[in-house]
């Protein structure tokens, strides 16, 4: 004898998912505001050194007053010996191909001047104040950095930044 009515299985009230899009949109907007767009994967592999007491470059990035150059080992290890000391320079994803051409033909200077002439007109920082940010592999020889620095000095692009991964905080 059953006193209880058997429960009607399978046809419970459905969960209302009308607010699901709202929640997801909220997340979406959060990520759109809180993050910055990733730079193109550079064609060279760079593992940054670490440091503390660094300056945050985000304000300069927002004003597009900064250009990045990458110096690291080529992703294809067989190509490494084609470059001076095994390290290749990548400017806007173009690896500077000849081993000593980079230093002879003033590639960095031309690249920098090119970038400067393409900047939007609202940007009014002079060339010497536009930062050139060095993203250099931790075991790269410093001599190469100074070679690039010399080319920047020749065209009077005088502000540079050495990128590091910050391991401390204030």
């Amino acid at each position, binding site marked *: 004898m059953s006193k209880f009515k058997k429960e009607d299985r399978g046809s419970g009230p459905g969960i209302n*998912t*009308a607010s*699901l*899009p709202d929640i*997801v*949109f909220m*997340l*979406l907007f959060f*990520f*759109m505001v*809180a*993050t*910055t*767009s*990733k730079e193109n994967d550079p064609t060279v592999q760079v593992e940054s*050194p670490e*440091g*503390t*007491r*660094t*300056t*945050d*470059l*985000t*304000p300069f*990035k927002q004003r597009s007053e900064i250009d990045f150059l990458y110096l690291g080992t080529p992703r294809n290890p067989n190509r490494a010996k084609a470059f001076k*000391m095994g390290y290749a320079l990548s400017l806007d994803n173009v690896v500077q191909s000849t081993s000593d051409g980079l230093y002879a033909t003033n590639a960095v200077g031309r690249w920098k001047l090119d970038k400067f002439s393409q900047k939007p007109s609202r940007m009014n920082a002079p060339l010497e104040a536009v*930062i050139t*940010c060095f993203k*250099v*592999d*931790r*075991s*790269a*020889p*410093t*001599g190469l*950095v*100074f070679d690039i*620095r*010399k080319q*920047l*000095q*020749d065209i*009077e692009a*005088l*502000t*540079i*930044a*050495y*990128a*590091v*991964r*910050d391991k401390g905080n*204030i």
Partner: protein
Amino acid sequence: MAKRDIPEINAGSMADIAFLLLIFFLVTTTMDKDQAYIRNIPKKIDIPLDQAKVQERDILSIRANNQNQLMVRGQIFSDPSKISEFVLKFYRTNEKINTIENNFPMYSTTTLALCDQSMSNLDSQIEEAETVGNQKLTEFFLASYEEWNKKKNAIKLYGKSEIRELSVQAHVRIEVQESTAYSIFTQIQNEIEEAIFELRDDECMRLFNENYGILKKRNAQDSDPNDKAKLNLLEILYPARIIEITPKN
């Protein structure tokens, strides 16, 4: 005609679309910031000038060789994290005692009267250069006039009639060789930055009762003239003069 109900639009796939967008943004963006040490390259000089010889006590040379071994003022350093202490010593030793014997840079006193005098001197020099029509000279005088003006404002903010200033020639010099690892180079930069931060932070705490890091951060976000003046004073008290020597082949 019969009145027809407008059929409801099915919004069930809205969430899917939003998820798609969300995932796209998650993949293409990054949250980590770019952090770096900002430095200036000195201007190229066409005609080498006859410069006064820099005193040995004004130089703090930090050298790293091809084997990544470090040497600070002729002493071998096995632990790179000790460099910042030495840089601190370089700045602090003569702050109070000021003797020539200890081979560290001397401090001098700059008064408000000196600022005013130099500025009025420069005023007449600017006028003179303008009448002759020497563009470069005029620019040079204007720049140094600006510098004195900055100093004057700094002294006013300091709250006294004078300020103690490190010798103008005192500098830290980084000498590396061709194949010194880049991580050693940045570590030296890090140590110098650490020392200068500590000097300025102490002074900032004493003068304005606030953290130097916070002051700097606030200045980067919204540039308030008061913050700028504070930073300017701290920079005059503890200037960061770093020279990077190009390695010889």
